[in-house]
């Protein structure tokens, strides 16, 4: 899979940030190390970035840096799960997840008064996929089982959720990224979800 890349020079021209800012954000872990891709060009080795990811990230940093300090921003972008919990009623009231998804979750994995961040993430991912219509309720149960069984093993690593269908049979995968995955032609990849960006979205929603 050939990624769409952007060179460092082009990135700075496009966003108007300086080299100093870019290096500062890198030091503060606002831009992950594995986005810095080195490639040989005719002028020597140059640095490239995954175009969409880096542009979205820089846009977010620029818009949020007035309200949050760089260290607080780093927490938002970190793939580490935040140490926070939200009351069950609040999840519905603040429209973080839908009551249908939450109901499915409690049915499968048990009820609780207070939801820690990790559990909210599961419901949030479920909620998103149900909303887009990518998965059915039955598949939602499968998704919860995958996340509950295997997601804790990821800890601070970045991961991706892949959902495929073939001949009416569906399956979920959890990959640690960066990784390449290839399927035979009969497989339909229904959805690929970057867990780090889901975590980011959710952290912004909750805080």
């Amino acid at each position: 899979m050939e990624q769409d890349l952007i060179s460092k020079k082009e990135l700075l021209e496009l966003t108007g940030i300086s080299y100093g800012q870019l290096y500062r954000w890198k030091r503060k872990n606002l831009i992950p190390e594995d986005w810095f891709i080195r490639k040989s060009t005719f002028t020597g080795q140059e640095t490239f970035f995954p175009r969409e990811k880096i542009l979205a990230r820089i846009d977010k940093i620029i818009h949020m840096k007035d309200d949050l300090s760089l260290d607080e921003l780093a927490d938002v972008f970190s793939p580490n799960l935040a140490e926070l919990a939200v009351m069950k009623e609040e999840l519905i009231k603040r429209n973080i997840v839908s009551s249908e998804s939450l109901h499915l979750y409690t049915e499968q994995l048990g009820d609780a008064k207070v939801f820690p961040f990790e559990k909210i993430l599961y419901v949030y991912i479920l909620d998103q996929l149900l909303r887009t219509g990518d998965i059915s309720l039955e598949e939602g149960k499968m998704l919860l089982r995958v996340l509950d069984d295997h997601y804790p093993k990821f800890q601070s690593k970045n991961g991706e959720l892949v959902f495929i269908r073939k001949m009416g049979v569906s399956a979920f995968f959890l990959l640690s990224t960066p990784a390449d995955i290839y399927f035979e032609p009969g497989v339909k990849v229904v959805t690929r979800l970057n867990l780090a960006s889901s975590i980011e979205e959710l952290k912004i929603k909750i805080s």
Partner: protein
Amino acid sequence: MEKQKGRDLKVSGIANASGGAYDKAKIEGIGKVHGDLDCNDLKMDGKCTIKGNVKAGVADIDGMATIAGSMSADKLTIDGYASIGGGFSGEELEVEGYLSVAENCQAETCVINGGVTISGLLNAGTIQLKLYGNSRVKEIGGEAIQVKKGSKRFSPLPTFPFVSFTSKLTVDTIEGDEIYLEATQARIVRGNHVTIGPGCEIERVEYREEFQQDKGARVGSHEKM
């Protein structure tokens, strides 16, 4: 980072110690620490070897230190010679003498009087490098970058008769906002305000706002971006 109070490590003479978490760690003489060391306050005098990673609040190295793994410290001061087998990350880095880092080195402020060898990226908000002897860095990135040639008289390194040291920095890429360079050999320098001082050999300069070149500098090509 609050470690157990009163649990200190003290090594003096010729001795070995095991790693661990301490409040204060003091190593004098010829000391060897086997394993990772984690402490609030680290002081090394003499010749010390740590066979593991080091995490410290404030670290002070006098003499010669070899760290096999990576190191992180809020403030690291080196008087003498230090070699880090992994990367370094911290807030303040101050070197009088020589520092070698095998991977990336990052800090908010980095002041070096002497020489460095960094095989990865040197990334710091402010970099002040005063050259006494040869330095080699793969890449430098930051906000304010200043490289100057130190005067011979105040060299912190020992001077030997009949041996002449050249003071030069060799680097592939330098990228920053404000850049001032002397005695630097680089492939490419990119920045907003770039000043190339005496003794430099730069293949290419790319700048956004301002570019100045000393008579005693050689610049292959320069271009306003």
